[in-house]
């Protein structure tokens, strides 16, 4: 392992998510099992007329999340985050009394953040002038706005962190949370990944040749949503999050991924791989690494159904892996006992990451 704290583990005690296929753990699992995939929505770049595509959280799901006075001026990213965080804490069976909240921290994983308000705010600057830009929009553009809203919901007055990076940032957040738990000051950490989409984001990633075009099959289908994992001392699943590795040149990416896999699974035996294949350039690299190291292991790639939710996606993968271990099956698969799952991703901006989940019963 590359750092002293890499081998540390924590326990998963709660899960939650908001995805393009719904927000209920079992409902989304069932839909994945039926082979449902996120419904793409075509939007148009209003400046150039170019069509773009992403997978939204359906309006029906958003309505079901309910209204929240604290979020009355917030963007979708905060709604998704708060809904997933609250669901995960409920799933953990935790009642956040003031005493419990004092021993609870929040760690967020974000890649693009509040792009809707950021674009709207900058649009006002460019098209109407700086003196017309709305002060209502700006506070919600900061990366840590969703974390602030969730801290307020929980009444947490202690540690709240927002980490940023590419689609591997969820693994960093899990490792960061494990580091916080190791200080002994906390009983649990709520780790949340969240993301929203906007035409400027879709345009940027399409221009970067990462996102797919409408009707196309090459490239990632960008998605929005959130996922939350409560880490603590108790729980039926043990989690080891790798701190990740930078990838300075694309030709080094195979080696970086393989090193992470070897660190997490030194014996080379694992029952399931929950991979990050999303249709982008990274798929071939990940496929090569997995074929070499885990040629016989069952693989499941949730981004193929749920899309690439950027900062939320690694935590969505972890939720899928946790549910698979608990249910003893991948979505739609036959039941069999599985004791461990490797979760892995090669990020779109020079990061590689991963985590290992183990059943403890």
């Amino acid at each position, binding site marked *: 392992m*590359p750092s002293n704290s890499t081998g540390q583990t924590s326990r998963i005690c709660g899960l939650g998510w908001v995805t393009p296929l719904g927000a209920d753990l079992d409902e989304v699992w069932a839909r994945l099992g039926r082979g449902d995939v996120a419904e793409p929505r075509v939007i148009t770049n209003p400046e150039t007329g170019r069509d773009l595509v992403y997978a939204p959280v359906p309006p029906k799901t958003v309505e079901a999340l309910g209204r929240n006075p604290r979020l009355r001026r917030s963007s979708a990213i905060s709604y998704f985050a708060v809904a997933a965080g609250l669901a995960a804490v409920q799933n953990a069976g935790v009642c956040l009394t003031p005493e419990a909240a004092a021993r609870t921290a929040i760690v967020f994983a974000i890649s693009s953040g509040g792009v809707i308000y950021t674009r709207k*705010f900058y649009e006002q600057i460019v098209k109407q002038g700086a003196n017309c830009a709305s002060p209502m929009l700006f506070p919600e553009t900061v990366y*840590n*706005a969703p974390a602030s809203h969730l801290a307020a919901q929980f009444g947490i*007055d202690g540690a709240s962190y927002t*980490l940023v990076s590419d689609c591997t940032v969820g693994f960093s957040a899990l490792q960061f949370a494990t580091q916080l738990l190791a200080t002994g000051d906390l009983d649990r950490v709520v780790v949340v990944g969240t993301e929203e989409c906007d035409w*400027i984001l879709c345009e940027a990633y399409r221009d970067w040749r990462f996102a797919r075009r409408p009707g196309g099959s090459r490239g990632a289908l960008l998605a929005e949503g959130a996922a939350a994992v409560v880490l603590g001392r108790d729980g039926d699943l043990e989690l080891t999050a790798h701190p990740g590795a*930078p990838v*300075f040149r694309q030709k080094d990416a195979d080696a970086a991924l393989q090193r992470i896999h070897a660190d997490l699974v030194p014996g080379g035996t694992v029952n399931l791989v929950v991979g990050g294949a999303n249709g982008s350039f990274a798929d071939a690299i990940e496929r090569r690494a997995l074929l070499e190291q885990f040629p016989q292991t069952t693989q499941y790639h949730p981004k193929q159904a749920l899309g690439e939710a950027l900062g939320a996606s690694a935590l969505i993968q972890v939720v899928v892996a946790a549910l698979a271990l608990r249910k003893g099956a991948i979505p739609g698969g036959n039941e069999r006992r599985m004791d461990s799952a490797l979760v892995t991703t090669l990020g779109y901006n*020079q990061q590689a990451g991963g985590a290992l989940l183990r059943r403890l019963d």
Partner: protein
Amino acid sequence: MYSLSTSPPHRVAVTAVGIVSPLGVGIEETVPALRAGHDGVSPVTAFDVTRTRCKTAGLVDLAKVRDRLDLERARRNRPRHPASLMMMTAAQEVRRGDPGFEPELFVIGTTSGGMSFGEAFYRAQVEKRRPHTRAAWLANYLPQKPVLEAQGMWSSAAPSQIIANACASGTNAVGHAFRLVRGGQQRRVLCGGYDAISEMVFVGFDSLQASTPEMIRPFDKARTGLVLGEGAALLALEELGDAQKRGAPILAEITGYGISTDNHHLTQPHPSGIGPRQAMERALADALRTPGDVDYINAHGTATVFNDATEGTAIADLFGDRVAVSSTKSMMGHALGAAGAIEAAFSVLALEHQFLPPNIHLREPDPTWRLNIVANTSREASVRCVVSNSFGFGGTNATIVLEKV
């Protein structure tokens, strides 16, 4: 399971500092500027400010940064965001200050990553242009790029954690890194923060009327708001015994870290000052220090009505008027995600060189509280224990305690 620390905590040394700010590129320029109370604020020319109230910022001399960067030609000509240039220069200074330091982990704070490249991309859409540079804009917009560039100075494949806790990010990064080394989870961590001026953020603070068309006057009765700044600072943290064994320079010791979250409002602190007070109390308790042990507070001191009111109240309640206080933002503006790291570096320099940086532009201290403000000129002083504060949007508050070894 994660192991709860039962052994005595490790002591955490600062073995090197790298700094790029409106007060200078590198320690050699920064120390005299701090002593002289240099005003690093100047007119903004990078974008149109005719329709903003505020028209100034603390700006880094990027031409000088480029000159100082020691890169071979191929790497020198690669398109980079100013934040990357500043981070690479700070990293270069750390390398020169402690050549034996090999980081195991990078913990870096920022608020806006490469925002100005995102702005350029948006403007290209509006203007229906597709310039070749847009690929570089996109790759460098993401916040980890300046960190990767800094890592490249070590050819380091160590992992990174990038904290975006608004204006507290830099102090959070230093504080988290400190906790990791003290708890034995890491032996050597490079920590710090960066941010570069962008139009979106500049106008954002202007729209909130948090920034001022006048001078930045922290803790002044007639303060009217902040001016933004930019820069980068990096601190090399290592377990003290390890650092001493290899003969590394020991510039200071970090002894405490406190974090609090104030849920009052996304952009306004609770008027009671509970958030800053909790962060300072927790940091002092973490350092096993009392307010009476502290010689100097490098305040967050943004000069907004709300921040200074709550921070001033918290400092006065906790420390009285004995401890010297200054806001170095008075000299260079508010560098957001870099601010906490830059101010931690300033605190190290105050401990090392035994002086108190001034709070310039102070005319009449706010009479609401009695504070011992280092008004307008620096002071020579015996400095053994420093508190450095950072508070941010989202109600996030962070404080670290630094001491002379």
